[in-house]
């Protein structure tokens, strides 16, 4: 009996060799598809089983990436080349403010065009219908220019330059009262005019966000300190030179990053501080196991039902590699069909999850590719395992 070898290169060579032997027999192309689709009910059941596994993998991956992206959201919307923050602020959800003097000091550094301070503060938004006050994150900055990409800059700047105006994040969780442009919203017992909406999204800590000018925030707390500064460098300045100038000319109580570095640091921190990668990885593994077992069972039954036919092919002189090709083709059909079904289920699931959690759960080209590779690998591996039964088919038993 043929033994499967676990080395990836040998495994890949085996699949490649099987397909090569199979495809060289031209008229047989599509034979695996013809065989497995002969019983459409069984095929649909197989697709459904694999689709469930694919959906599980998609959902687990979507939750993980959605969670990570939501946690690192601020880093991904920065409109600047560099970000500076307190050295003690080891992740974006740690609220160590900067010394405001640093903002002024950085303004004077060679190569810095401008630095925009960003403030944040937890505030209470009152629901006028129930009178309940719900916590909401307030982001504030000078309204002359936007440090973060949250919508049309002109519209936002125009709204924020109007005193006591807020912009509401339309992707906030639906726990707040409905916001209507031009109407009043009460925040920390003070009336504000709703000037429009922005697009940001909550994370696992904050349910919603309002954006206001720094002047409006100072009205609540004149001593509020910046949480970070977004730096734009002068035209022609070299990023690393500017960074070096800032680091050498300022005390070491600040950290400085590019937006990409900050995003990466946030992802790494989230993955390192909580076992979510492991937990969602276990979930994906469960999907992989479910799919593998389903695929194996289907292909095993297909082979057992046609064992004498496969033995006849061996007697006629068809190679083992050719038979593998037939099974690999069947496995690939199961992978493609199951994946297509799973993608549809996942799309519906993502829409539901995004609606319920407001997390940035999205199907991306990367996740589609990743899950398809997993699904195809899962089905091919299951097929090669089931193939051991074909290897055991003895043509001498036909007489």
């Amino acid at each position, binding site marked *: 009996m043929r033994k499967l070898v676990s080395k990836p290169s040998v495994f890949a060579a085996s699949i490649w060799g099987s397909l090569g032997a199979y495809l060289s027999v031209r008229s047989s192309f599509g034979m695996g598809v013809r065989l497995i689709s002969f019983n459409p009910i069984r095929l649909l059941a197989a697709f459904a089983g694999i689709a469930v596994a694919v959906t599980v993998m998609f959902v687990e991956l979507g939750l993980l990436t959605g969670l990570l992206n939501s946690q690192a959201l601020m880093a991904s919307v920065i409109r600047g080349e560099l970000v500076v923050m307190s050295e003690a602020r080891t992740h974006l959800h740690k609220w160590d403010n900067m010394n405001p003097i640093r903002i002024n000091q950085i303004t004077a550094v060679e190569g810095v065009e401008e630095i925009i301070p960003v403030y944040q503060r937890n505030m209470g938004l009152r629901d006028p219908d129930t009178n309940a006050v719900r916590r909401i994150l307030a982001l504030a900055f000078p309204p002359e220019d936007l440090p973060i990409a949250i919508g049309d800059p002109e519209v936002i700047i125009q709204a924020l330059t109007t005193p006591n105006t807020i912009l509401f994040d339309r992707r906030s969780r639906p726990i707040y009262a409905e916001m209507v442009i031009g109407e009043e919203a009460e925040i920390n017992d003070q009336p504000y005019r709703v000037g429009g909406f922005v697009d940001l999204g909550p994370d696992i800590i904050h349910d919603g966000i309002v954006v206001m000018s720094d002047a409006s925030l100072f009205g609540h707390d004149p001593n509020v300190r910046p949480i970070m500064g977004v730096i734009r460098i002068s035209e022609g300045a070299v990023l690393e030179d500017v960074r070096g100038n800032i680091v050498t000319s300022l005390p070491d109580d600040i950290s400085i990053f590019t937006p990409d570095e900050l995003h990466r640091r946030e992802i790494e921190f989230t993955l390192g501080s909580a076992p979510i990668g492991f937990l969602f990885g276990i979930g994906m593994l469960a999907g992989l196991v479910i799919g593998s077992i389903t695929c194996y069972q289907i292909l095993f039954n297909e082979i057992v039902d046609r064992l004498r036919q496969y033995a006849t092919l061996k007697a006629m002189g068809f190679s083992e590699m050719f038979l593998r090709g037939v099974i690999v083709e069947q496995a690939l059909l199961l992978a493609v069909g199951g994946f297509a079904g799973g993608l549809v289920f996942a799309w519906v699931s993502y829409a539901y999850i995004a609606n319920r959690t407001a997390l940035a759960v999205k199907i991306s080209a990367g996740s589609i590719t990743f899950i398809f590779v997993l699904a195809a690998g899962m089905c091919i591996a299951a097929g090669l395992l089931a193939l051991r039964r074909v290897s055991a088919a003895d043509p001498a038993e036909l*007489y």
Partner: protein
Amino acid sequence: MSAVAADAQHGEVSSQGSHTGPMVVARGVEYAFGTDANPKPILKSVDFTLEPGEFVILTGPSGAGKTTLMSLIGALRTVQTGSIKVLGTELEGLSPIGQRDVRRRIGFIFQDHNLFDALTAFQTLRLAMELIEPHPSYDEALVRARAIMEPLGMAEELNSQPGQLSGGQKQRVAIARALINEPALILADEPTASLDQGSAGAVIGIVRERITRSRAAALMVTHDTRLFSVADRVVRMEDGRVTDSN
């Protein structure tokens, strides 16, 4: 290089019916099932020869060793003791790839049709034709398929799947599959068991015609005494030995 072409390097693949000299020469063949410690002998010093153009029927009681001898000649089992030369190739000590290459030059007809339920008769025949080099085109394959199916009364069933055929029709498709590549040697195990007398006669006629036309040879296991008259020779086996050959 295709895998089939690569396989061809290990032996002749497409030289159907071109062999000269005896088709099969078996000398002192012994074969046993069971373990080394407790062997159960099936064949006992069997000598057997099959010449080109010969149609030989192998008969005898159940358990006489007919099927085992046939599977050894067909390179479906590995020779344990003795020598078997098939189409000029010594099977004793032959590698699995070498055995496979010998099998490609043999037309096997089994008692069961063993057809894939999802393939039409033409697809079944075309699959078999892919074992020869060069691969015939679709049109060539269609011509060959019609040529083999017409004498079997199956020309209208090329696009039928096994589920649409009677038992006898399925067996005729299986026979066509065995003969489509004009094998040098035909090994048949009760090929007419599921056929009516007319169909059985047609099948034997086709086998006979192939043998005559291409100097091939056929070895057929059967208990059907009606067929003995059309054979060149009837070989009887009993208890693992050839007891009569005339």
